[in-house]
């Protein structure tokens, strides 16, 4: 009798525990899907990496979350922001997660398109071990706007200096170090224009970077400006670049073209990358994320890993130069699949996700712990060291583009005026004054 009643009590207790747990279990299964009924999330991303993420990262994510079906749609960079804006303001947006470029967060946040990732709704699904403090300040700040965290860094990028050790050696110059100043760089540049095969014709030049009329070309001038102690905007958000430092920095950008290959005024991201990978230029100022395809991947480069050095841009009057360019993941404020969307974003921005992303897709991490750890691939070691250095510099010098819902309009004005100065159609001083007037009225 005693045994029966004990069994009955145990059975009843077990039954009531199972029954009481059921609603939670059902809720959890719904949020992250269940066998036969997966949850679907759609992500809008830059077509440059959407496909590789779909093929390489999503299967890794699905090892932990097998019932979340992730679809990443690639959109050409030039159309990405308008498409994101259109989707974000839609009453029923198609996309749950948006992969947003550095200056776009304020624009998407200002139309109410993004969810506050530190807000209550998202916090309910945030893992206890998700360490916000582990992010470097500079990349995390890219996803912030007016005190809210609308996005987290998932593909960090910084403007860095790449150099070709073989061409430096041939010119009889010492290998650059992060202490290299702009003055030293320009002194050495003359020797880096050389005839490497002895046929009497110059076939290698000192530098290539952005000179073309493009919205990213001003980032080079801005990196020089901030390395010289200048600022884009003052504390009141008014243009502060139209001064002596600004003009001198723009002249330095123009002087770089003197040591670049013929036709460099038409060079931007692709052309400078091509010139560097073919061993035509000794240095290149571009985004660090191209390192793997420039130094490691034999399908895309003629250079060998040991030939390519990477460091921050030369030191100006105040500090070394760099510029932030972070791809952030934000969640649509109207998503129906918040738990699954945040699970994907959390996984991707976790230390584990960052390591997988770096090893498989060559994306750079933003977490201090990831950068301090030994990477899975040997080529990542010098890159991690340089990245950590550049994050600190970016934080100190606020080396990023204008943070405003109208940042694109301001950046286009800068692109127009920097291009005029580089082409010699206006003096550096006049071009910057025009840009300052126009930007002041744009940001009003």
């Amino acid at each position, binding site marked *: 009798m005693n045994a029966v009643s004990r069994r009955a009590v145990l059975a009843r207790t077990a039954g009531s525990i199972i029954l009481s747990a059921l609603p939670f279990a059902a809720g959890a299964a719904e949020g992250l899907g269940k066998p036969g009924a997966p949850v679907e999330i759609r992500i809008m991303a830059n077509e440059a990496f959407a496909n590789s993420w779909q093929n390489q990262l999503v299967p890794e994510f699905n090892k932990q979350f097998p019932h979340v079906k992730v679809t990443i749609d690639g959109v050409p960079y030039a159309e990405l922001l308008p498409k994101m804006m259109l989707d974000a303001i839609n009453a029923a947006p198609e996309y749950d997660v948006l992969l947003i470029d550095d200056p776009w967060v304020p624009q998407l946040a200002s139309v109410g398109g993004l969810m506050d990732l530190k807000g209550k709704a998202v916090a309910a699904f945030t893992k206890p071990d998700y360490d916000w403090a582990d992010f470097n300040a500079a990349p995390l700040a890219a996803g912030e706007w007016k005190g809210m965290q609308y996005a987290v860094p998932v593909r960090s990028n910084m403007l860095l200096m790449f150099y070709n050790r073989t061409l430096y050696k041939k010119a009889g110059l010492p290998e650059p170090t992060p202490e290299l100043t702009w003055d030293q760089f320009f002194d050495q540049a003359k020797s880096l224009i050389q005839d490497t095969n002895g046929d009497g014709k110059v076939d290698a030049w000192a530098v290539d970077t952005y000179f073309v009329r493009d919205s990213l070309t001003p980032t080079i001038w801005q990196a020089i400006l901030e390395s010289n102690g200048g600022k884009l905007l003052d504390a009141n958000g008014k243009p502060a670049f139209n001064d002596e430092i600004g003009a001198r920095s723009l002249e330095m950008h123009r002087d770089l073209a003197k040591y670049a290959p*013929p036709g460099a005024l038409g060079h931007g991201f692709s052309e400078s990358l091509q010139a560097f990978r073919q061993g035509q230029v000794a240095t290149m100022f571009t985004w660090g994320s191209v390192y793997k395809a420039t130094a490691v991947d034999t399908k895309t480069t003629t250079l060998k890993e040991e030939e390519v050095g990477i460091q921050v841009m030369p030191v100006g009057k105040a500090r070394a130069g760099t510029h932030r360019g972070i791809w952030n993941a934000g969640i649509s404020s109207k998503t129906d699949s918040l738990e699954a969307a945040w699970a994907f974003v959390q996984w991707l921005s976790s230390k584990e996700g960052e390591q997988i992303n770096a090893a498989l897709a060559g994306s750079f991490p933003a977490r201090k712990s990831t950068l301090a750890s030994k990477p899975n691939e040997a080529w990542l070691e010098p890159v991690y060291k340089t990245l950590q250095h550049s994050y600190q510099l970016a934080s100190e010098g606020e080396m990023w583009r204008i943070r405003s819902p109208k940042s694109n309009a301001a950046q286009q004005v800068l692109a127009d005026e920097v291009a005029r100065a580089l082409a010699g159609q206006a003096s550096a001083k006049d071009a910057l004054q025009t840009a300052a007037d126009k930007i002041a009225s744009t940001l009003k």
Partner: protein
Amino acid sequence: MHATVSAARGQSKKRQVRWESFFDLLTRWSFLMPTILVLTVTLAYPIFYTIEISFAEFDMSSFGAGEWVGWSNYREVIGDYRFWESLKVTLVYLAIALPLQITLGFAIAFLINAEWWGRGITRALFIIPMVVAPVVAGGMWRMILDPLWGLMNYALQSIGIGPLDWFGDPDLAMAAIIIIDTWRWTPFIVLIATAALLALPKDIFDAAKIDGAGCWSTLWSVALPLLVPIITATFVIRWLGAVKMFDIVLAATYGGPGKATNVVNLFIYEEAFRSLRFAESSAMAVIVLVLTMVLTGIFLRGSRKLEERF
């Protein structure tokens, strides 16, 4: 009695005629309606939408016209030197590219029209540039005109010219755009001109030959006057195409160096889709639309005058 009957018959006939004419009108309109509807949706609506936005503040949260701001966007655009610069660049491009393409097109058509070996193949080859996508054409010509590795500089250097910095020098960059555009669109003019030449009455040329007219006087005094309506119509058609051009610039020079090739449509595109200044860019689009309409009207009137004269 008879009068009453015939009056009634007359009235019934009138009613029948009226009904028939009404039915005829109804039939005509029913055929026209689908076209009118399609045109209204595809042409008129976007134009009116653009005009509406140009007089309003653009509301990003609804992606449409917000508060009415009157002429404010137009004042902003008129005060923007970049708009005027881009108009100037467009005018330079049009002033050189259009006459060049028309002259080349008709000259090539004259050559093709003559009997010579390989004429058929040449005619077929002429169509190729027209079917190449502008982005591909721009990219391909970037390679041809590359200062270091390009075929063009290689050829020019063999005759002692250059090397030329096609995309670094503002004047050469404009020349590059005109070369690419001419390469793409001259075949279109060649096709029209060839068809026009084939349609010319042969007896007039025979009469000119009997009268002892040489090649030059036949061309100048017979062929050209007969071709004036076609030349003017081709000019207007090509003008309407050329004034919209921006794809080749986007693919080849990005509007640079500096602002040397920043045509007005590229500027409008950038202001709208890169700067997200949809209201201001709509105002620019409306100004360009009005300017284009006025100039097209002038060209049409001029072409009518020329036709009357010849």
